[in-house]
């Protein structure tokens, strides 16, 4: 018995239980390198043509700072809105049956498929002063098109599917029996939501939020139509990069891109780290119990 155990352990240590690790790992590294790291590496390399002083000057002007601020907060706000309403949407689409459900489900994917410029033009048409919704908003002094609020609207639009599509499969997997058990044991509805559903959903919520947020940071096409592109007020970071390129200032453009890349990466890494901690917690409580 002991000898057999040891043999198994040796085997698994050497090879792992699943076959094909080396092949698939090699492929993963190669693929990630070719598709993601190579172009990003070229980007970083190009920015190294600048001296530190040039780099610092390129990324820290008042317009750049204002653009970082707008891009960050508008993306954050858009992702938060999507987190709340996307969760509700995902909940409704997985838990209830109603006529037109398939249609509603398909609608969620539209922001994925629509060219973002089209989305931008459509949103602007709706929210502009003579638009369908805009005329009532402007009459009440609320400016959405050509104002920072417009940026948030566009970013909410493009980010929505990321939250819904991330949550749906996990919600489908969540066994209603657990909620029933909690209810039978005397938990009220809010308590079920807070103690049973929310903990199970937390990592997924974070992933959906991170995806939506990351997508919003990089969005260009739809925002430039609705934002008005006013320096210091409604300029997003990708527009600034585009502006530098238009001046044949490739160094300046890549410098800003590198700052944005580093920022996005740090944020995504942070969100994933929080998600990992969240995922580990229920396991630990089981051990204690």
């Amino acid at each position, binding site marked *: 018995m002991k000898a057999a155990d040891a043999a198994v352990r040796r085997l698994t240590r050497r090879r792992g239980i699943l076959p094909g690790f080396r092949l698939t790992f090699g492929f993963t590294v190669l693929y990630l390198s070719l598709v993601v790291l190579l172009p990003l590496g070229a980007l970083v390399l190009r920015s190294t043509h600048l001296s530190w002083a040039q780099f610092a000057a*390129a990324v820290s*002007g*008042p*317009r750049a700072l204002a653009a970082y601020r707008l891009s960050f907060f508008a993306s954050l706000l858009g992702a938060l809105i999507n987190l709340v309403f996307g969760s509700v949407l995902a909940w409704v689409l997985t838990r209830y049956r109603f006529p037109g459900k398939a249609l509603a489900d398909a609608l969620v994917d539209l922001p994925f498929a629509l060219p973002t410029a089209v989305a931008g*033009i459509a949103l*602007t*048409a709706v929210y*502009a*002063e*003579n*638009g369908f919704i805009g005329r009532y908003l402007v009459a009440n002094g609320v400016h959405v*098109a*050509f104002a920072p609020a417009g940026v948030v609207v566009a970013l909410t639009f493009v980010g929505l599917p990321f939250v819904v599509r991330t949550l749906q499969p996990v919600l489908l997997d969540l066994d209603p029996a657990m909620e029933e058990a909690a209810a039978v044991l005397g938990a009220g509805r809010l308590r079920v939501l807070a103690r049973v559903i929310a903990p199970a959903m937390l990592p997924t919520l974070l992933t959906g939020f991170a995806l939506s947020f990351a997508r919003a940071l990089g969005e260009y096409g739809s925002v*430039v*139509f609705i934002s*008005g*592109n*006013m*320096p*210091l007020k409604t300029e997003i970071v990708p*527009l600034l990069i*585009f*502006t*530098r*390129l*238009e*001046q*044949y*200032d490739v160094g*300046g453009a890549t410098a800003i891109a590198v700052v944005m890349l580093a920022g996005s990466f740090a944020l995504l890494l942070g969100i994933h780290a929080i998600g990992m901690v969240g995922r580990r917690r229920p396991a630990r409580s089981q051990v204690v119990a």
Partner: protein
Amino acid sequence: MTLARLTAAVLALSAAAHADATLLNVSYDPTRELYQEIDAAFARQWLANTGEKVTIQQSHGGSGKQARAVIDGLEADVVTLALAYDIDALHDRAGLLPEDWQARLPQRSAPYTSTVVFVVRKGNAKGIRDWHDLIKPGVVVITPNPKTSGGARWNYLAAWGAAQLRTGNEDQARAFVAELFKHVPVLDSGARGATTTFAQRGIGDVLIAWENEAFLLAEELGKERFEIVTPASSILAEPPVALVDRFADKHGTRKLAEAYLEFLYTPQAQEIVARHGYRPRLEPAAAKHPGGFPKLTLFTIDEVFGGWRKAQKTHFDEGGVFDQLYTGAR
């Protein structure tokens, strides 16, 4: 046997491909319809003169973006862009053509011109007649972002130049332009975007636009809705054309490309140019545009700004005058 036949077929095909000469003209956005007609006319003439069939391919996009594509390796035989600065970049950044490219064809290599005018809503309620009317209280002006749009750079320089000519003073011109941009609520990234904002979204009292675009706007969106106002003075916009030596030589199309560019100066092409709302260099061709072209005092970028390179550096580069208008730095 089969292999021989296959080889013969391939050879025949490639020979056929050689008989049809092709030319790539990389141009900017609003010239799409203009060059469609010019290309067809040139192909007919070339076929008649040489017996050779020629296909001209067109690529359109923002002027700066197009120049960057050529620098990055889009093998254009000729470029027809919105401003000389973008063709200078082909020399400065990639050495694709000689520095004196602008001296190789007549009239600084610009076979047609345009100018910058105003489009107002029917009735012209705000009484816009000339540049200084644009900064009257309550007037809202639409013009695209000079940082991202070549056309908008002409608009900006037209405003500056007109003010400088009127006041004779650079500081006053700067003050005028600073005030003018306070009347601009939206900076679209391109000229067509600005047109949409003005015409479709109903924002603004005045759209600053190239004359040919203004004609097009009035024609397509209704003369009963818009009026064109020509100011007393404006800039002579000279969209230049050039042979891209390196790629034309690589393709062996130099002769054809040169003939194509020279064709632009012929009466036939000049009439097409006039029909599309650009000002032709040949005076008689101007009659081909219905209603003709209003007279005004035109100044060139060389006269007022000392050329594109200097204008770009002073006004539009990072930290230049345009940035200072917004950041308040000086």
